[in-house]
């Protein structure tokens, strides 16, 4: 008993004060990319050629954050002259085309569906479906339940049954073998329902683009309301997206 109490005191209060204050993230974190449009064409070409995800559009000089896995290769080879990744983790969008960006994202709050705020603003129960992928997105959704993020204080929870939920959070590139299970889970959720796509796999196929076993974009099979990019998205990115879209 004494050990339990002693430990409790040592642990202290650990919950972050987000969204009132933004927690500090280490400087090597790669968040929202900013494109320098006046970069020399050969630098832009080199970035596009080196990008393992082919996420760079050289003519529009934009990055597709849906395909991007935030590896930072373009920043490294252009030494920041074409692309620079900022520490800004607030990068979710309400429309898929907003993911294709030069670094200036439309405000998520203004593009969220207003009736959702009325319906789900005080209580949002979500069912998560892991549909392929590498389990990193699931892991960084799970941490939202740990004391530092403490998602439940906002009235948002992950629940065990689709029947108890207001929507689904999908991760992974929807493998052929998970497609039916995903669609059945979606059907089991009562209307009106929300679909949230988390991670580059779910948005575009991500690292598995080109595989015959996957679906390139959840939006090709379900109506997606919220797009959260990253590989995986930082837990704060997820937290920002949920709070801004629904609160």
């Amino acid at each position, binding site marked *: 008993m004494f050990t339990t109490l002693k430990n409790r005191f040592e642990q202290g209060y650990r919950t972050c004060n987000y969204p009132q204050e933004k927690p500090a993230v280490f400087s090597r974190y790669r968040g929202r990319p900013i494109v320098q449009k006046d970069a020399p064409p050969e630098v832009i070409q080199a970035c596009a050629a080196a990008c*393992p995800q082919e996420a760079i559009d050289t003519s529009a000089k934009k990055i597709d954050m849906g395909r991007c896995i935030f590896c930072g290769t373009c920043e490294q080879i252009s030494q920041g002259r074409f692309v620079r990744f900022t520490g800004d983790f607030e990068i979710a969008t309400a429309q898929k085309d907003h993911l294709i960006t030069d670094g200036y994202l439309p405000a998520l709050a203004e593009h969220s569906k207003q009736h959702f705020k009325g319906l789900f603003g005080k209580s949002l129960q979500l069912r998560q479906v892991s549909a392929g992928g590498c389990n990193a997105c699931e892991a960084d959704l799970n941490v939202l339940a740990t004391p530092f993020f403490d998602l439940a204080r906002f009235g948002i929870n992950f629940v065990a049954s689709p029947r108890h939920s207001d929507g689904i959070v999908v991760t992974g590139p929807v493998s052929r*073998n998970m497609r039916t299970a995903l669609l059945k889970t979606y059907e089991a959720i009562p209307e009106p329902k929300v679909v949230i796509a988390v991670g580059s796999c779910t948005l575009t196929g991500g690292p598995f683009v080109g595989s015959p076993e996957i679906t390139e974009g959840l939006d090709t099979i379900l109506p997606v309301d919220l797009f959260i990019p990253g590989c995986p998205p930082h837990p704060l990115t997820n937290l920002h997206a949920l709070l801004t879209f629904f609160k």
Partner: protein
Amino acid sequence: MKNAFLNVLNGETLDLERIPHLSFNNIRNTCLDIIKAGGKVVQFFAYENEEDIKLIAVLRTDKLMVATCYAPDTYPAFSKTSEPFHMFEREIAEQFGIRPQGHPWLKMVRYHPNYRNRPDVFGNDYTQDIPGNYDYYQVAGDEIHEVAVGPVHAGVIEPGHFRFNCIGERVLHLEIQLGYQHRAVENMFHDVAAKRLPILAENIAGDTTIGHCLCMAQAIESLTQVQPDKGAHIIRTIALELERLANHIGDLGALSGDVAFLPPANYFGRIRGDFLNLMLLICGNRFGKGLVRPGGVRFDLNDDVRKTLDNRLKELKPQVKHVLDLLFSASTVRARFEDCGAVSNYDAEQLGLVGPAGRASGIPYDVRRCFPTEHYLHLNIPENKKTAGDVYSRAKVRYDEVLQSIHIIESLIALPVETACVDNTLNPLPPSSFVVTINEAWRGEVSHAMITDKNGKILRYKVKDPSFHNWNGLAMSLRDTGISDFPLNNKSFNLSYCGFDL
């Protein structure tokens, strides 16, 4: 033991022609003899080379050894007498349509058509929805009932199907059927541009990003004769240990939660995140994606980063120790952990368990000690083996390894680490070559094998996650155990679905 196999080092490139080409019977007999004498299977797979289908086996005793032969269309199954081949033979049957006659339980691994358009060994029609459309093993009797779980689980976890046959609360048999996450990763390695190879390796299993990416990088380094510098070896070693720390601590927290002792569950949940953040400190990603590349690492460990890492570790170490004490000194926790889900040493040897699950059942094997790569040559890794094979042993292995990993990282960051960062560029691969690499990731032995064709293109890329060996260990641990102890046992193994499904 003298045999027809060729000894090969971990990460040694061989000309394909140097690999002994044996008769099928010779391979079969030698494999069975070596396993009978205590050897283990590292890789056993088929590949297609200019019309020929071949089998290749990589076994380990205190050495690694390799041999190859022509693959027959059907053959007498090794698994009839040698259980460690069980999963490998099913995989070969699924991928190449080769039937092991008399296999004790021949069923699909990942639900996909074979690569050669041969008739399906399992009689499946892959234009239909296959997963779940399968006759699960059934126990008959008045009091018998079945419990079906998955593929979509109650928590935020990966998909898989678990079928319990129970009598009352007691589990007679647990059948685990995976494959839901199959993404055809191995085949993608054959086709994608070179710049995508590390990305694929990193995304086989996100919680083992470093383990898998190291195997890929070491294989390519050996093939292209590139040597990472000493600093890169140290940074990779730190990363592999950070990965181990984050996962072991997360597992211990989850185990605590599963026996309803919530304080350590919450503290370790938070502390696990702190270790993920230390990975982000080094490379910008909480799972280490983007760090390891053929030739070295993409991010250095400059003095600022090194000092921050050191300070954070100093802060975390006493917290970790205190929570470990809290968890392991609670009599209620011990009462639940001890004697729960025991896997005997005999069963573990038969199944070929690896990693902490193997060590908990008395198998001391640890790649870091037995076939060291990176900086492990210079480190003393203890044996860490336990004897009981129960949940307590599997937790205690993690307890030991958590403290050791912190110590390893502390010792490695005591002095400045210098490395020349590499980018994503790769040298061309040599023709007609073979390489196999193994590393001790947090779940155990990860292995990648690569074969190139006469033009230096990747002909066959084979991935083996430790979970491939260990899922049957979980099934064994549930025998005659209360079904309510499933979550606890499952967490004590914490195996990878995506690493298995590929």
